[in-house]
């Protein structure tokens, strides 16, 4: 696969974390006691080369600590690699923490603007989609009340509604996404499936759940200690989940 038609391309991407047993402080740094603090390096990603084409549906599997979440974070632009090149050619939305960025004192509508801007939408875009977001979340009568009156489920619904209306071209899904009550879960699943079916829509799913990978992905990436161990079709997942 050439770099040209890929929507995400990683070249030699590495990421190391320093494991401090305690957080460093400025005082220690100045007094040079810091040498006494044990530092350990942990290689989360080791020279990853990866190309993902527009419209691909990729599942990432692997044991805990194999670098799945770090890879997702790098693609989402939340963290940067120590080495290597990252190229992302479309808007990425990650369904990681749906409720972050809401403020309890603001009304639902004010929160929609704030959250959507944080996700990278412009004000004009939100103006256009406001109605659709409110309807999707089913919060019409609450939209002008402060968010601290909302239930947890309502907040999650609003978070989800904003994320899928942000017109992502690449969607990142981490495992353990909770979206509220059963009724809304169905609605959310339908909306996701509708998104997945859109032409040229790219999905990356990190999951330990067999069905999640098997039903939604065509390509599977198996990470082992920060390296790509296997990259191929659903067969990898079938073997892995046995």
């Amino acid at each position, binding site marked *: 696969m050439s770099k040209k038609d890929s929507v995400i391309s990683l070249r030699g991407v590495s990421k190391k974390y320093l494991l401090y047993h305690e957080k460093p402080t400025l005082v220690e740094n100045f007094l040079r006691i810091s040498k006494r603090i044990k530092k350990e390096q942990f290689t989360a990603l080791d020279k990853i080369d990866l190309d993902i084409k527009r419209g691909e549906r990729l599942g990432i599997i692997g044991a805990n600590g194999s670098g799945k979440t770090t890879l997702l974070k790098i693609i989402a632009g939340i963290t940067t690699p120590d080495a290597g090149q990252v190229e992302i050619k479309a808007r990425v939305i990650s369904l990681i923490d749906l409720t972050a960025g809401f403020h309890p*004192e603001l009304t639902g509508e004010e929160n929609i603007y704030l959250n959507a801007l944080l996700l990278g939408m412009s004000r004009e875009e939100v103006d256009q989609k406001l109605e659709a977001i409110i309807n999707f979340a089913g919060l019409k009568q609450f939209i002008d009340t402060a968010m601290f009156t909302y239930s947890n489920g309502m907040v999650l619904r609003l978070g989800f509604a904003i994320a899928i209306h942000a017109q992502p071209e690449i969607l990142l899904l981490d495992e353990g996404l909770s979206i509220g009550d059963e009724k809304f879960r169905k609605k959310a699943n339908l909306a996701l499936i509708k998104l997945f079916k859109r032409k040229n829509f790219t999905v990356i799913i990190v999951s330990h759940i067999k069905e999640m990978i098997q039903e939604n992905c065509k390509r599977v990436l198996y990470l082992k200690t920060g390296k790509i161990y296997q990259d191929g079709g659903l067969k990898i997942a079938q073997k892995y989940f046995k």
Partner: protein
Amino acid sequence: MFVLHCGSSAMRYLSKSLRHFYQLLISMTSKELRARYKHTFFGFFWLLVNPLLQMSVMAFVFRFFIKEEIIHYPYLLFLGLLIWNFFSLSLSKATPSIVYERALIKKARFPREVIPLSIVLSNFINTGLALGLLFIPVLFLGTLQISSFFYLLVALLLLFLLTSGLSLLTSALNVMFRDINFFVQAFLIVWFYATPIVYPLSFVPNQYQWLWFFNPLTSILQLAQYACLHTPLPNWQTFTSNLAVIVLVATLGILVFKKQATKFDDWL
């Protein structure tokens, strides 16, 4: 290294992201303002009560120590306290802000600068309103001139630059070194007395005046006081050295923040 392509030219991308930065900053600032006043009856009123109380106590107490009569002393104090409160409040709120907003940092990719800057900006708006109210009694003193507004504008601009730069610096460093916050708190106490708020700079003996070259708030305060109350302007040595410190702090703040921001997630 992060390369983004949006299917448009680099210039269009730049102007688009600047626009987004601006919209996000405005939105975050209005969140700060709304969140602060939603549940207080007098809201903005509290912003004035604080310096008014401080001023009353200080004007009363320092009268015993300061032998020479200082004209418009309560006004000088109030103006100084407004500026100081803006500075210290912004700095002590912005320094731990990145750590407090860790959920946001871990959620999405957005310019991280908006977190500390929205705090500084919301305080700045409040301070501007309070200054506007201070102008009402000052009008009757007859010290205002047309040029006053120019000097006040310069003072506020420098104040904003200094506070933003320093807030960017301390908020970024606080992610890695959590004791920065304590340093800032301790340093602010010293800084208050090192700034000519309760005393005019002319009270400082000549051989020590150079010490105030390093405190950029000196010129800012003197410019604002000149604008409102026609006290002496800062001399050129103080002004140029103060200006140099402000530019240095702001540059350092922006550079350090830019460098650290890529690693915030690793430390939170």
